[in-house]
């Protein structure tokens, strides 16, 4: 296990460092914004205990809302990426900082406040030289609690494309890559501990020095932000991909092809950016410019067409393309050859023993076989229930299992039949047999680049470049590349480049 993690870190060091830095950046910005909001708010409400109580209650309620829900609520208003992640984090962090500041200020020895009043000090003197310094230990402990909270919660930023260490946790869960999971989780835990320790050290310094320190960080941060905004290359296009190795391979190919077509176009990649609806919203709001999407997904999840998905891949693509164009003014380029749809797999030995070639063959021997399916597949009408009706078969027993576990269970012989995605590398890894869907029950899932009409019009060079992949990459090619990336842990960029070169798509 440790070897795996070390190897993983070794291979992805640069990307991990970037994620770590991104994590620190998001957390720091969130904490600074929270400090700027929560502390003045508490100061303003010290002499208005009723309103102070109400704000405390509201801040408390916000904290009880699951962070995922807050992110979901925010997407329509502020879109995706770093901004909503920071807003959500700020909402979370306000409570501890506000409450501690408020409590710190309201629990100062009244004798000292009377002394300050009796000596006729100015309001400013009283606040900055007496009240805040005396409340500082409480305020700092609030900031410490908030920081630890924010660093932990910031892992969720990955869900909405905010990046950070959460990317590795998410990636680890989705691809059953424990090394990635451990890297993400351990690093964020270490970061929280270090930050907590750092604040403890900082609390030794005087109020004045701390104030100057915060100011310097704010100014540097602001300058850095301004600089990066100012220096943003004008012709940058952003290509994003869903979670996992396959989309990452594809967007790396997109990048190589675009760069070949037009050298001055800068391409920014956002791998492991999120789920379908999330990426689609990002595309609509111009936060990203291109992402690869499947025809089946378009028809079933995005355009919600009332008629049944056409089982003929070309027709399905045509339907998807038209619907996207009419409903969303989007351009859906021609798909690649491979299909990444549902499939039913068995072990080679099982296939031999029962002479299994198509799903229809299960009618014969199904009652002797046990099945394990992904929970979604087990429930959806276009999954197991529909399949069983279409092919009239019955299995001895069926249970649900995590997607990544079901392959292991199948390979170990604990179950005999599972669902699969046709390009999953495990099919190759465990030498599994995919049963033919002779009745074309499963809708076609062909991948193709999706972008807005507007973008396609203004970036013809990108359209030209990405069209080169149309009809390329067979299911077997994709399986092989996925195997290289998710099982062999080769970098997606290298695998993508190798394919493009071998197939003369890249000079």
């Amino acid at each position: 296990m440790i070897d795996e993690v070390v190897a993983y870190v070794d291979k992805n060091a640069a990307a991990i460092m970037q994620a770590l830095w991104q994590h620190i950046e998001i957390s720091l910005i969130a904490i600074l914004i929270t400090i700027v909001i929560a502390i003045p708010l508490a100061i303003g409400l010290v002499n208005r205990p009723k309103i102070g109580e109400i704000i405390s209650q509201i801040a408390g309620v916000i904290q009880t809302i699951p962070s995922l829900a807050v992110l979901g609520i925010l997407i329509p208003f502020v879109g995706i990426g770093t901004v909503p992640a920071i807003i959500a984090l700020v909402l979370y962090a306000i409570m501890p900082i506000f409450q501690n500041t408020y409590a710190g200020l309201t629990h100062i020895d009244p004798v000292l406040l009377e002394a300050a009043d009796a000596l006729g000090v100015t309001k400013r003197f009283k606040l900055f030289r007496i009240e805040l310094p005396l409340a500082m230990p409480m305020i700092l402990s609030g900031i410490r609690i908030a920081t630890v909270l924010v660093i932990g919660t910031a892992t969720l930023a990955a869900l909405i494309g905010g990046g950070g260490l959460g990317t590795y946790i998410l990636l680890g869960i989705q691809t059953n890559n424990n090394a990635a999971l451990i890297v993400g989780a351990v690093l964020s835990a270490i970061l929280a501990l270090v930050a907590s320790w750092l604040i403890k050290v900082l609390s030794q310094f005087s109020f004045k020095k701390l104030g100057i320190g915060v100011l310097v960080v704010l100014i540097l941060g602001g300058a850095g932000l301004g600089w990066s905004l100012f220096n943003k290359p004008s012709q940058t296009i952003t290509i994003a991909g869903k979670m996992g190795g396959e989309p990452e391979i594809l967007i790396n190919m997109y990048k190589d092809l675009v760069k070949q077509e037009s050298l001055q176009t800068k391409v920014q990649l956002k791998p492991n950016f999120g789920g379908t609806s999330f990426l689609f919203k990002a595309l609509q709001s111009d936060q990203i410019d291109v992402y690869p999407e499947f025809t089946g997904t378009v028809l079933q999840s995005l355009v919600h067409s009332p008629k049944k998905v056409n089982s003929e891949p070309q027709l399905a693509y045509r339907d998807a393309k038209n619907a996207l164009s009419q409903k969303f003014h989007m351009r859906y380029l021609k798909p690649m050859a491979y299909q990444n749809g549902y499939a039913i797999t068995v072990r080679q030995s099982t296939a031999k023993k029962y002479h299994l070639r198509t799903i229809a063959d299960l009618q014969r021997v199904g009652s002797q076989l046990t099945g394990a399916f992904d929970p979604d597949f087990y429930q959806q009408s276009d999954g197991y229930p529909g399949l069983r009706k279409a092919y009239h078969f019955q299995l001895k027993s069926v249970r649900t299992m995590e997607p990544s576990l079901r392959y292991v269970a199948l390979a170990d012989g604990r179950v005999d039949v599972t669902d699969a995605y046709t390009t999953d590398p495990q099919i190759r890894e465990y030498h599994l047999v995919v049963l033919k869907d002779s009745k074309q029950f499963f809708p076609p899932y062909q991948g193709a680049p999706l972008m807005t009409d507007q973008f396609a019009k203004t970036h013809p060079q990108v359209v030209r470049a990405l069209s080169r992949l149309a009809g390329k990459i067979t299911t077997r090619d994709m399986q092989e590349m996925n195997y290289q990336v998710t099982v062999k842990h080769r970098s997606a960029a290298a695998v993508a480049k190798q394919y493009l070169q071998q197939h003369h798509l890249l000079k």
Partner: protein
Amino acid sequence: MIEFTNVTKKFDGQFALKDLNLTIDDGELFVLVGPSGSGKTTLLKTINRLVVPTSGTVKIDGEDVADSHLQKLRRHIGYVLQTGALFPNMTVEQNATIQLDNLGWPAQKKHDRVVELMSKVNLDPDQFLNRMPDELSGGEAQRVGIVRALAARPKLVLMDEPFSALDPVSRRQLQKIILNLHQQIDTTIVFVTHDMHEAFLLADRLAVIHNGVLLQEGEPDYLMANPADEFVKRFFDVDNSGTRLLKQVLNAGLGRPVGKDDQAITLQNSQTVYEWAGLLEKNPSQLILVDGAILTQSDLISYVADLGKEPTND
């Protein structure tokens, strides 16, 4: 001059001060004395408007404090609290210069002033200026509190039971310091205490307050000799106070009626046996007149001789 006119203060419908009239003259060390809860601290705080009277006026040098700029008013009034009330986040010097900071004094002038006052309260500036309050004893902290109150050369200093939390030795030292300082500087001091001995020791004049009412005011010896009522008498605990009054000599059955040729005089100041003895020291045959009776040298001798026989409650 501080003038209280018909000052009344109610807290939650309860009288803390009831229609109180009092004048404190410039340069006086004036003591407000009374049992705890009597309203003496409340009265003190009406001077710098930490307490706003329900009705009545408080004037300093003819100006109603209600009409003055609050912070300016307070910056020119020294204030010493019961516990010193030094700010724990500031050094001794920072604490001592708070009013000077707010008055905008230049740094060197502030430093010199604090150094000067530190030596007056017997604290070595080199040793103490950079200490934090938690490194001070109670007595040291209160000395810094006094330095803080005097730093801005106020015409008026308010002291709210400043020595009540100290041990007897420190208390006596600080009482001496206050008396010395008061002699050296031309400042009015209003001093609140519940300790009758302290009141007698310090006061130029004092006022006895009980249940928000001013019972009696005047010089200590006068009050001792002529308590206005039973409460004042009991509060001063005249019989056991250690102070021996001429009246007590009469009460002991000594003295004789005034004769025709008696050349008697009346004591002017304290009406105590000590003053009497001092007089007899210079002129052994001097007769004195107390409440229509004549006391002679032999009366004093008999009185002091009898004191040794009876049990005392001191």
